[in-house]
C-alpha cells in the first residue's frame, strides 16, 4: 500500500503540531509527504504532476489545520484544479476509483465542544461532509479521520502515543485493528536500531517482547475460535 500525505499549511515551520508530525513521519518508501505551500509558493499548481502523484498512490490523506471548519485556501484551490472532470469524475473520470481517502486534522478546540450542545455545536463528521462527498463522487473509500485536538496542551505521554498513531495511520491498512497493529509493532521491533538503546541486554529484551506479543496473539485467536464455536 502506498500512501500520499498532502499537507496544507501556510506557515508549516512555525507550527509545533505540524513540525511534530513531520518529524514523526515514518521512514518508508511507501509513504510520500507532499507539502503544497512549499511546492507551490506562487500557488501555480502543476495539475499533471499532482494527478500523476494521485495515480501512483493507493491511500490519499489530507493533513491540515482545521481553519473555520475547512482547510487552508491552497488545498481548496488544489481540489478545484486537480480533481477535474474526466480525471476524478464524469466520463472516463475514474482515476481515483477504489483508492482510500482520509483526513488528518489538527484542531485547536477541545474534542468535547464538537457535539450538539458543545461550543462548536456540530460533530467533526458533520463538519467534514464536503470531504466525504468528494470521496463518494470520486469512488474513494472514506477513512475514519485522525483528529488531533489541542496539541499544545498534550502531555509528553500523549504526544508519544500520537507519534505512534500517526505512523500507523500512514502505513497500516486498518489502524483500528489490534491484530494489524501487533503485526506493525513486531515489524518495528525487528528492525530496531540497538545502538541507540545503550544496553547490553536490549536484543534479549526485545526478542522477549516479540515472543510475548506473538504468544498473546495465539491465545487471543484461540479464545476467539472458542467463542465463535459457542455461537454456532
Amino acid at each position, binding site marked *: 500500500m502506498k500512501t500520499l500525505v498532502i499537507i496544507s499549511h501556510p506557515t508549516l515551520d512555525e507550527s509545533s503540531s505540524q513540525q511534530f508530525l513531520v518529524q*514523526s513521519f515514518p521512514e518508508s518508501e511507501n509513504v510520500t509527504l507532499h507539502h503544497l505551500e512549499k511546492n507551490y509558493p506562487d500557488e501555480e499548481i502543476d495539475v499533471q504532476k499532482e494527478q500523476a502523484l494521485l495515480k501512483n498512490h493507493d491511500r490519499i490523506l489530507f493533513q491540515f489545520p482545521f481553519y473555520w471548519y475547512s482547510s487552508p485556501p491552497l488545498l481548496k484551490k488544489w481540489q478545484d484544479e486537480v480533481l477535474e472532470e474526466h480525471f476524478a469524475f464524469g466520463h472516463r473520470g475514474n482515476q481515483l476509483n477504489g483508492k482510500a481517502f482520509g483526513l488528518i486534522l489538527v484542531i485547536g478546540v477541545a474534542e468535547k465542544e464538537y457535539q450538539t450542545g458543545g461550543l462548536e455545536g456540530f460533530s467533526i463528521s458533520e463538519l467534514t461532509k464536503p470531504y466525504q462527498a468528494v470521496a463518494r463522487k470520486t469512488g474513494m473509500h472514506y477513512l475514519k479521520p485522525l483528529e488531533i485536538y489541542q496539541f499544545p496542551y498534550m502531555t509528553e*505521554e500523549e504526544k*508519544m*502515543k500520537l*507519534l*505512534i498513531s500517526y505512523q500507523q495511520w500512514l502505513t497500516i491498512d486498518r489502524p483500528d485493528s*489490534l491484530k494489524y*497493529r*501487533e503485526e506493525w*509493532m513486531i515489524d*518495528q*521491533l525487528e528492525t*530496531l*536500531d540497538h545502538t*541507540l*538503546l*545503550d*544496553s547490553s*541486554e*536490549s536484543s534479549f*529484551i526485545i526478542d*522477549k*517482547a516479540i515472543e*510475548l*506479543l506473538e504468544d*498473546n*496473539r495465539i*491465545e*487471543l485467536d484461540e*479464545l*476467539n475460535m*472458542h*467463542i465463535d464455536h*459457542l455461537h454456532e
Partner: protein
Amino acid sequence: MDEQEWLVSKLKELIENSKDYKQKALLNAVIDMIKEQEKRKEQMQGQLDGTLWSPGNWNQ
C-alpha cells in the same frame, strides 16, 4: 514477579536509556499493547465463561 511484569520493567529501563524519542515512543507503545492484549484476553475469557454459564445453554 511474573514474566510480563519483568518484561515491562525491563522495557521501562530501555526507555530510560534510549537516546531516541521515536524509539522511546515505540517502546512505550509496546508496553501499552501488552496491556491491551491482556485486557482483551480477560474480556474474551469472561465472555467465554459467561456464555458457558448462561442458564439459556444449560439444557442444550
